[in-house]
């Protein structure tokens, strides 16, 4: 038999992309603004989310969260203290969330009851890059304790983000964090990306972060009306 070439030309993550497109459509028709939070482990995603959920709820918004970790439901228990509905995805060792996991954990939630849904991804600066979760906004966290050059080391993920949060700013001085270098590096990898600076400890920058989220949500709702 002579060898022959079969043309395939299919996306390797096609299944995930299709599921994500389905989720995006569900989120759109329910009018819920979905944020995918990504970062390395320990950058402060959960603390930022605790503050965010508590403040949004206090302002009268309806918010919910799904949080992914390889093991434990510690983060979901922390987030639930805000009063927001919270679900934990245990990935059992898998280093990223996939659209199917998110879809399974939405289960019986009535999405139209939420204004915001936050998806806290598994702490990982590589594997989370390629998996679309149907989000409207992907936010990457960079903690001052991690060093200014993280964006240069992990360009694929930082380039895929719609916004960047520099977290743990209360520790900036102790870590001799070079703020200008960090901003330059973030903009080198993703020109024009909005950068917010926060501290979950002192709540510095939290108001600006919430204003940013609200503004993006309004733009999302506006685009639905036009579309």
């Amino acid at each position: 038999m002579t060898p022959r070439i079969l043309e395939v030309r299919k996306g390797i993550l096609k299944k995930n992309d299709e599921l994500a497109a389905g989720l995006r459509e569900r989120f759109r028709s329910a009018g819920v603004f979905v944020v995918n939070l990504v970062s390395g482990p320990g950058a402060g995603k959960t603390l930022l989310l605790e503050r965010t959920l508590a403040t949004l709820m206090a302002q009268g918004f309806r918010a919910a969260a799904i949080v992914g970790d390889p093991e434990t439901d510690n983060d979901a228990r922390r987030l639930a203290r805000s009063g927001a509905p919270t679900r934990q995805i245990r990935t059992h060792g898998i280093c990223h969330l996939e659209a199917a996991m998110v879809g399974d954990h939405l289960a019986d939630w009535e999405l139209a009851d939420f204004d915001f849904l936050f998806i806290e991804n598994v702490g990982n600066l590589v594997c989370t890059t390629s998996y679309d979760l149907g989000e409207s906004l992907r936010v990457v966290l960079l903690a001052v304790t991690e060093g200014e050059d993280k964006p240069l080391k992990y360009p694929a993920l930082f380039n895929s983000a719609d916004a960047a949060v520099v977290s743990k700013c209360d520790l900036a001085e102790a870590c001799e964090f070079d703020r200008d270098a960090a901003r330059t590096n973030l903009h080198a990898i993703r020109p024009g990306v909005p950068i917010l600076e926060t501290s979950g400890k002192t709540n510095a920058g939290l108001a600006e972060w919430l204003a940013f989220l609200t503004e993006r949500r309004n733009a999302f709702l506006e685009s639905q009306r036009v579309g």
Partner: protein
Amino acid sequence: MHELSVVRSIIELATEAIRDANAVRAIAVRIRVGALAGVAPEALVFCYDVAARGTPLEGSHLVVEVVPVVLHCPTCDRDAVVADISRFACPACGTPTADVRSGRDLEIESVEVM
């Protein structure tokens, strides 16, 4: 390390193609991986041999074509290949740009079969 799950998807798609074509076995599977895909080509090749065992792809080679990042420069109004992905800027005029035209690819291109 999510390369094993990526390799499983490659094997699933390639096996489908082999069955649809009534082919017997595969010699090579060609894939395209963008520099921004978040996947390490070496790790894919490393997982492939083991994951292919017991499938119609056993003994075949995984051939990876790395797709460079192509940016569109708003100033030059041209696409340009960027060799250094630590700076998203036009290599000709230096204008920063986030307009990525290719480089996120993660695609199975073809399967060579007997």
